[in-house]
């Protein structure tokens, strides 16, 4: 899912960093208006940690195995703060495990963070429309990964036309991940709604 060093062209990498820096500033400033960000730090760090650990869970899908991404879940639980949380999670993955690259932190955060923000929007709209939580959770989770894959393919293709076939291949191999991610996110959302609804952006009055 995350691109490692040495694959993308310099312009794609620089654009990734610029967009990520801008979005980091916007999302942090945005959440500072709502409440004191310092109080959000534990929640944010835990989710970034969950994101990190979840990516270590390998689910056997013959002939290989895939791992969870959970960016949709991050979006649903953290809202706008999911972007900085994904940034932190990916930085630590690159730094501690060498999953993903050091120079690609910008573009990888963008590829996973923007879909997380979209998942948040979708979840809120779906919730207001009265769609069951499991279903809307599954939709946000699956869609977030789906959009991430499209972003990933796009960042490869903008690097060079030579990458079109490999981008297509990567997109196809991610189809099972979209399905798995939808099921898992739906089930996590249903679980949280039962056990700790204040972690979800829903009114508890209803």
């Amino acid at each position: 899912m995350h691109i490692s060093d040495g694959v993308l062209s310099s312009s794609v990498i620089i654009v990734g960093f610029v967009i990520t820096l801008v979005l980091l500033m916007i999302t942090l400033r945005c959440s500072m208006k709502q409440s004191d960000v310092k109080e959000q730090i534990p929640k944010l760090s835990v989710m970034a940690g969950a994101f990190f650990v979840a990516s270590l869970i390998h689910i056997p899908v013959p002939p290989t195995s895939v791992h969870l991404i959970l960016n949709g879940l991050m979006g649903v639980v953290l809202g706008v703060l999911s972007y900085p949380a994904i940034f932190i999670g990916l930085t630590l993955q690159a730094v501690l495990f060498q999953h993903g690259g050091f120079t690609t932190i910008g573009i990888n955060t963008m590829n996973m963070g923007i879909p997380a923000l979209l998942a948040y929007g979708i979840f809120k709209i779906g919730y207001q429309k009265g769609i069951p939580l499991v279903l809307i959770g599954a939709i946000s989770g699956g869609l977030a990964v789906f959009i991430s894959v499209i972003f990933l393919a796009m960042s490869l293709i903008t690097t060079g036309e030579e990458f079109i076939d490999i981008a297509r291949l990567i997109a196809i191999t991610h189809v099972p991940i979209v399905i798995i991610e939808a099921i898992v996110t739906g089930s996590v959302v249903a679980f949280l709604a039962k056990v700790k609804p204040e972690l979800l952006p829903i009114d508890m009055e209803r």
Partner: protein
Amino acid sequence: MEYPEIDRYASLKSPIHQFDPRAKIISFSILIFFVVFVNELDIAVINLFFSFILIFISKLPIKFVLNRIKWVLLFVLPFLIIMPFTAGGSELMTIDGIKMTYEGLVLGMLIVLRATSAVMLILTMLATMRFDTTIKALYMLNVPGLLIQMLMFTYRYIFVFLDEFLRMWRAMGSKGFKLKANMYALSMLGNVVGMLIVKSYERADRVYQSMISKGYTGNPKTMVKFNMVAKDYAIAFLLISIAILPYISKVVL
């Protein structure tokens, strides 16, 4: 699953271990970016060789390094295998009617070389100092305090989370649960992830409150004192000039 201990060998003694953390972060970052942006095969080979020398100087165990490189190779090797057949360009040879191109092969090799050198440089940079030193160095390099705090909290929670997750996982395993790609197993996995989040969220909140009550302000405090001496400037200058050298020589020649 194993602990992501990047700083397991931070207590070794080598010139790179003694290099000032701030200077190390800056010069290695510049080096990594230049290594990644190389477009010539011969320079990429030289860079790989150079990164290898730095690893050698740093005295990091080869097993540790190889273990880390493995992950990156898993990602980039498919590029080397697939690119020669899919990229357009002049024909190198034809196997069973499938055309292999020279350009594709060069690009595939470039990707593997750049990725391997970059990961070796990242390892030499980060595995030679304790992670809290790295964070303090970042703080002193004026990275915003909020990001530093999040980085530090998350880093600590990763270990808590791993333990907590493995405990639950063992409990489920001992009751006969097997992770498969089916509806039931995946929704169970969802419950475990949800439980993990709830448990850790509550713990994080508790810890944060107690830290605040003990006067935590968000500024990292470690006992390590940084001291830039002439030697640090010299090493930094050397590393950066090695990074830029190929580019300068290209412009001059």
